[in-house]
């Protein structure tokens, strides 16, 4: 008997429909074959399915079983085909019938229970988009998949649950479907609040501007000056994600296996901190079926590169295009695939190999040549794409031991309020275009949205000749000035906004 079931195959952070055809033939030598370019984990599913069925009290048919995953020319991977294959065999053994509008998804354990399987949100979204009404999946995936509305999600603990469902029609152990937006375990205890950081008013102001306008920020300074701490406090001032953004982000993290059982929708913006030993595939994404890289995992959030100068050159250079286009475009199996990569780049670095170049008291032991070579690691094109650049100098001891300072610095919540308001201003402004933040404005948009008053125009002209600003730097300053005036709730860019923006144009390659 031939049973056809629907399933999917992952391609990047999208998926395509796959037919799981299970043929159980009464004639021929008994065997169990899977065809259709399965990878190792799918090939091994034979043993899991056979044992799980036997341990669920089903006699495994001694017949010729052939499973085809169609289309046959696309490589498949993932352990979630276990359930559809088992269902195909059960259909023959027990004569089960089910709606063609149902999807089956999940990895089997040898005892017949279902394990947590990555990518259930993606499947639920697929079901929603392509008109499937029911999704059977492991109960540990229920929270994740039920973020999608208008699809009936049926959680199963084991194969036995499934058999009972088809025999009696009753759903066993359906959890209460009151979907609550909970933070998916990403409330990181390492994240610090602005109020716990003393001093550093310049750096904090820069982070506020970066958060408000989505600008990229580079902090340079000696070790121990607080660069990493400042960066880690950055997520706390970012505006909350919208519902669509939540789904978008959760989908990426669900399919890349960064989720664990019982997690629901992600509501906190991702904050990715890859180590500098990362490969460029790890950063951009890759593999046969295109695994998302760090830039995609940081989508709608922050990519923090600590010790920027220590990253391999090719990894840094690979960031150029995603920074510009907001996505990674590549080709797999003759299909053009796009991985979203709309992130805010945050980077920190020392200025020399020993780290102390520019430190007010500790001496740098590097030679002039070493310092020059180190600075050369920040390539021009990457620096060009970084909007804000500041020096972070260590606090003086008096600044953090002074017991007379009673008032705590402003809390992240206060800053986040201003940032959110500034984002709303931008949303209003860019209603008609597909831009979200000021940092995405192209030169035409800048001409249109960044009007300067006369005195500001004069100041900018003066600054261009004084600092030898390039055209790109010129537009960069206008973008930042736009965000500063948005934070100030001003329609026009004034002199004070522009003069503040000019302070962050700092090029880290200058002598200090």
């Amino acid at each position, binding site marked *: 008997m031939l049973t056809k079931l629907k399933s999917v195959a992952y391609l990047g952070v999208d998926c395509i429909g796959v037919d799981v055809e299970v043929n159980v033939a009464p004639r021929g030598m008994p065997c169990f074959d899977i065809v259709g370019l399965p990878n190792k984990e799918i090939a091994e599913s034979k043993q899991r399915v056979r044992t799980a069925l036997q341990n669920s009290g089903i006699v495994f048919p001694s017949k010729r079983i052939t499973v085809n995953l169609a289309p046959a020319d696309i490589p498949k991977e993932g352990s979630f085909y276990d359930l559809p294959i088992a269902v195909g065999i059960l259909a023959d053994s027990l004569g089960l019938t089910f709606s063609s509008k149902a999807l089956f998804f999940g990895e089997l354990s040898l005892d017949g229970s279902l394990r947590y399987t990555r990518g259930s949100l993606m499947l639920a979204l697929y079901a929603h988009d392509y008109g499937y009404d029911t999704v059977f999946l492991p109960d540990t995936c229920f929270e994740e998949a039920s973020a999608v509305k208008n699809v009936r999600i049926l959680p199963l603990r084991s194969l036995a649950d499934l058999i009972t469902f088809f025999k009696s029609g009753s759903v066993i152990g359906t959890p209460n479907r009151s979907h609550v937006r909970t933070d998916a375990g990403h409330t990181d205890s390492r994240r610090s609040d602005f109020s716990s950081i003393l001093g550093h008013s*310049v750096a904090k102001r820069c982070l506020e501007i970066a958060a408000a306008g989505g600008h990229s920020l580079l902090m340079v*300074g000696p070790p121990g000056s607080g660069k990493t701490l400042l960066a880690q406090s950055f997520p706390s001032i970012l505006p909350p994600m919208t519902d669509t953004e939540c789904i978008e982000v959760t989908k990426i993290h669900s399919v890349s296996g960064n989720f664990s059982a019982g997690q629901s929708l992600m509501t906190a913006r991702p904050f990715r901190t890859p180590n500098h030993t990362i490969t460029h595939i790890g950063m951009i994404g890759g593999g046969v079926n295109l695994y998302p890289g760090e830039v995609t995992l940081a989508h709608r959030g922050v990519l923090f590169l600590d010790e920027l100068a220590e990253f391999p050159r090719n990894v840094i250079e690979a960031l150029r295009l995603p920074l510009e286009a907001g996505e990674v475009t590549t080709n797999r199996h003759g299909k053009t695939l796009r991985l979203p990569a709309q992130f805010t780049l945050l980077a920190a670095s020392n200025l020399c190999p020993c780290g102390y170049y520019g430190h007010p008291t500790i001496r740098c032991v590097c030679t*002039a040549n070493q310092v020059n070579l180190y600075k050369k690691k920040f390539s021009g094109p990457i620096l060009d794409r970084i909007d804000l650049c500041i020096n972070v100098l260590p606090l003086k001891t008096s600044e953090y031991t002074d017991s007379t300072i009673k008032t705590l610095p402003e809390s992240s919540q206060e800053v986040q309020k201003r940032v959110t308001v500034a984002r709303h201003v931008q949303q209003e402004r860019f209603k008609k275009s597909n831009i979200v933040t000021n940092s995405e404005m192209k030169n035409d948009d800048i001409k249109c949205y960044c009007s300067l008053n006369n005195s500001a125009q004069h100041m900018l002209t003066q600054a261009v000749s*004084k600092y030898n600003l390039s055209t790109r730097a010129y537009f960069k300053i206008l973008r930042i000035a736009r965000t500063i005036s948005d934070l100030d709730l001003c329609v026009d860019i004034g*002199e004070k906004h522009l*003069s*503040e923006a*000019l*302070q962050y144009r700092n090029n880290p390659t200058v002598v*200090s």
Partner: protein
Amino acid sequence: MCGEISITDSLYPVLLRQIPDPPKVLYYKGHIEAGIFENCLAVVGSRKMSLYGKRVVESFVSDFAHVGITVVSGFMYGIDALSHSVAVKNGGKTIAVLPCGVDIVYPSYQQDLYDSILASGGVLLSELPCGFKATNWTFPKRNRLVAGLAKATLVIEAGANSGSLITARFALKYDSKLFVVPGDVFAENSDGIYQLVREGASLATTACDIRSFLGVQAFDMSMDVTSTVVGANIRVQEVYSLLKKQRMGLEELVMCTSMSFVELSSIITQLELTGYIVGSGGLYYANKT
């Protein structure tokens, strides 16, 4: 192609002839006019120049260039290269003594400077024939020529192991005058300077100190810190007078002035644009001249 001057030639620099081991032949590139070797001052210093050193070079060397003192240096990056380029920019004469053949640009990324020295009528000089590459022993040999060519040697910023100390000690050995510019006693670029002071160097705090030694008339240029900012309000004056006392970052200024961060940054930009202060590495300095 490069030219040659032999020791018997009348063009051969007089001062150089008097050192214990003058080169038999000097190779040069550029135009040697009479008098270019007459009023030479060697300006050398650290490769790892700080903003302080940069400001000293800009202020001192532009003064020398205006009064017609020939600036001799070693073409290395840092103080040396900046001295050449400031001299060239201010229409002065400069001689670069190379640690290799004069046809080789070393370090090669200073090709622009090499060309501009030639274009300004300066000279590239070496005792090594064309095609000779720089190696570790050619640098101290070159330093001996820098000191030997000049009536006086000025050292701006030198660490404890700086190559400039070699040049300075040659100057002391040849009984020519040695000037050093004092720096921050905590800075590593001052270690060598104060070592030289102990060995008998004279302090120079203005270009005038050196000019009067060389007996050159002053060029009319005010060298004092401007006392106030012309036509600015009291808050701008306050920031400027703070920075005149001491270099500061924005952070410190916020604490010292009780002004808001936004207001301060606009004042800083205004002062920077009008040239009263310079900023680097997150710190701001009041400008001289």
